[in-house]
């Protein structure tokens, strides 16, 4: 069966979620692209958006419409050519409206799994629960005569586990999108020894056609992205404890400072605990719990994460995209307070930030904010000079930051040594394109 034939009937499971809706959107745009080809003029494409309830699906079409509308605005030059034979579409606005309509026309929001029984391709993006994923894929596989291909968005569960337990006979691959899939360029692709080669061909074409790039990862729990991220969180937690125990700072002060070091001194888009809030504290705990049984040499478990969830502090985002409170309380996107699990309340950052900032000391003179650094035409030279200065600077902020980057390098190197990633370049690609860092962990800066 050809690529475009496989694409004629697709189901996205968990379509109302943040990852699922993005995958649904990308699939719909790819269907539109295929439909525009003269050879596919009479081919019909159907895309089932499967989720648990109509409430969950209610905002989905509006999201897809907005995304398709934005895509059309950005790509109006090529879309005018696509619709050149439509004499009724004259203005850019006519064409943009039509494109959004065409993308939406493939989508069927459904709540019954039976819809997936006729699909050739299943994208799975339900919550990171191995039992749920296995149950859903197994049910579809048993009832679908098309021998469907499964592409799972899991960021943590070994693909071979899903393959074996759902009896998929090698018709599964990991296709881990980054959040939000509509925007993020990078995808981690994972195959097992049993994965059928034709799935790789499909994924290669699909990813290329939706304008993304990918790196291969070995089938090891957490893969590259979470393999790095979970360990980074655990190291940051250790640094918080060190500050509390060795320098007698309070918990809130320590967490504030490590977050600041990871953002400012390490020139990242956000601090490590702010990133956990963005992803969701509950999601991080789930990923750790999924990874931990598969990792024998380390304990991938965070007491800090547990203590927040025990207090009902979850982070993550509201449906509007607004940040929920987590490690931090947010006001208009700014950090306002730190949650102290011992005191069970948020403590205002303004009460201690000045003292903490003074303790950390100045940044090296070559420092640039993250956004300026990533856009700087001489970024590599600048980063080299910056880290040379950081190494020489002896204030507490620089000292801890230097410790942090050494650990960062160790985590990155180990991902290759432990056969999670094929190459150092792939680790760097995940950090730079998936996490939007200014640099990867394996480099000659530090």
């Amino acid at each position, binding site marked *: 069966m050809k690529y475009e034939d496989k694409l004629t009937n697709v189901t996205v499971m968990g379509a109302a979620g943040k990852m699922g809706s993005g995958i649904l959107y990308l699939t719909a745009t790819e269907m539109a692209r295929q439909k525009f080809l003269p050879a596919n003029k009479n081919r019909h494409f159907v895309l089932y958006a499967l989720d648990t309830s109509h409430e969950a699906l209610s905002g989905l079409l509006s999201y897809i419409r907005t995304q398709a509308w934005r895509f059309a*605005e*950005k*790509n*109006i*030059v*090529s*879309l*005018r050519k696509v619709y050149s034979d439509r*004499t009724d579409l*004259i*203005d*850019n*606005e006519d064409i*943009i409206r039509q494109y959004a309509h065409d993308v939406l026309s493939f989508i069927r929001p459904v709540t019954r799994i039976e819809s997936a029984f006729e699909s050739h391709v299943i994208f799975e993006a339900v919550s990171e629960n191995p039992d749920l994923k296995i149950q859903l894929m197994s049910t579809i596989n048993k009832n679908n005569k098309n021998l469907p291909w499964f592409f799972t968005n899991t960021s943590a569960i070994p693909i071979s586990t899903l393959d074996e337990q759902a009896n998929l006979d090698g018709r599964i691959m990991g296709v881990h999108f980054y959040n939000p899939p509509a925007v993020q360029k990078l995808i981690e692709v994972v195959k097992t020894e049993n994965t059928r080669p034709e799935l790789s061909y499909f994924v290669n074409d699909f990813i290329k056609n939706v304008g993304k790039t990918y790196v291969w990862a070995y089938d090891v729990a957490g893969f590259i992205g979470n393999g790095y991220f979970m360990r980074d969180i655990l190291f940051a937690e250790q640094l918080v404890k060190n500050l509390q125990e060795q320098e007698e700072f309070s918990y809130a002060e320590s967490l504030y400072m490590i977050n600041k070091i990871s953002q400012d001194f390490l020139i990242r888009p956000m601090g490590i605990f702010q990133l956990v809030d963005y992803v969701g504290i509950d999601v991080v705990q789930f990923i750790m719990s999924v990874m931990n049984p598969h990792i024998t040499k380390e304990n991938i478990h965070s007491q800090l994460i547990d203590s927040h969830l025990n207090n009902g502090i979850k982070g993550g985002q509201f449906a509007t995209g607004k940040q929920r409170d987590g490690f931090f309380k947010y006001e208009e996107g700014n950090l306002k307070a730190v949650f102290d699990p011992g005191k069970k309340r948020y403590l205002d950052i303004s009460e201690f930030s000045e003292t903490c900032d003074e303790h950390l000391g100045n940044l090296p003179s070559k420092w640039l904010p993250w956004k300026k650094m990533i856009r700087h035409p001489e970024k590599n030279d600048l980063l080299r000079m910056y880290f040379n200065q950081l190494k020489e600077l002896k204030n507490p902020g620089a000292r801890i930051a230097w410790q942090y980057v050494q650990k960062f390098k160790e985590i990155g190197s180990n991902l290759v040594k432990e056969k999670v990633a094929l190459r150092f370049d792939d680790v760097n690609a995940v950090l730079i394109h998936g996490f939007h860092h200014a640099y990867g962990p394996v480099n000659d800066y530090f």
Partner: protein
Amino acid sequence: MNQLTISFSKTPENNSDMQMRKKVFLVAGYNTISMGTGRKEFHPRKPRPGLEDYIKEAGENVLSQIGGADNVDECVIANFISSRYNKQANLAAFFPYIDPGLTYKPAVRVEGACATGGLGLVTGIKSILAETAQVVLVLGVEVQNSVKAVYGADILSAAGWYKERKKGHAHFFPGKFSDRAGAYFASYGKEKARQAMAMWYRNAIENARLCPTAQEFENKVEDLESLAFTPPNPNVFVDHLNVYDCSKVSDGASAIAVVSEEGLQRCGISKQDAVELIGVGQAEYDLTKAPENPVWLSTTEQVVKKALKMAGINIQQLATVECHDCFTIAAVMAVEAIGFATTGRGPDFILQGNTARDGKVPFNTTGGLIGWGHPTGATGVHQAVTIWEQLTQKAGAAQIKIPRDRPYGLSVNMGGDDKTLVSLVYKKC
């Protein structure tokens, strides 16, 4: 009653004999900020002044300079297409909103695409010559940031023939002038033309940095010419132009008073603070036809000739020019059509520094359309205000030297792809 010597007879030869039957002056110019990307105050998602705010600001400032609304006989509002950008028509009825003193006074709205402002001035001039008025308030306005540029392109395409829209480029007018640029490169070589376009861009931004109302006033880019050499990206824009070759999307208003000698006296304004309008050229080319020669602005050539003939001067006597540089290639071709260079030699004229502010004939001394901004309906009026400022020594940091033996300025305001043209010649009083 004096006999009208202004005439529109049937033959083109007679058209070019148009004469001023009495003196006409411009006084009390005012420009709002040209608002849009590049200005610190601009944020696409935050509330901004509306059409009526720009009208009021520009109108009030002119009225304050001419002794108030009682001194005004008639008003002209120049606006291209607010009915689509702002869902607002009937703009002449905004004059009483500027000042209740304008209530029940005659007013008219004119339109001629991007030459709308020029047509507004011509309309005011005709009222003075027809002696229906001694003082006419002419105000140009456009508020374009109400929609994204991709939809603005649809709206602005109305300056072309609507039947060409379907086959036209997504960015309709950049597409038109990209085609002209492509033809120009093919005819006369690309390298020198691109160098001249880059120098034009640099001059425009450097001039804008001297004018606080300019959209590019706060532009701090050091190497402007390198930026101007950014390769065009036909996948998202047009084949032969980059975004720096194009004027930006702008909100703004400009206003000025067109007055007779009696009007000057009524307003209590001395001639030192006025410029005299001594030449007017206005012409149209068939909207349904492609240019006869894609590397030549024939209508621009015609109106400049008419205006200069009427003024009785030649281009060597000009101290400054405001040309319609909606695109850098339009500037190169305007330099040629005005007569400073033969076809294909405009780049040499620019590259020799002749159009720079310290050159032989400084062009667009506050940035022109690329540097100051291009609120379409206001642009023709803005050009007149700029020349009025220069000839009356009111241009502040942007002031150029006006030689005593060359006390003249020229403006060229173009609507569409060289379709509707207005050229005016100004004389220091």
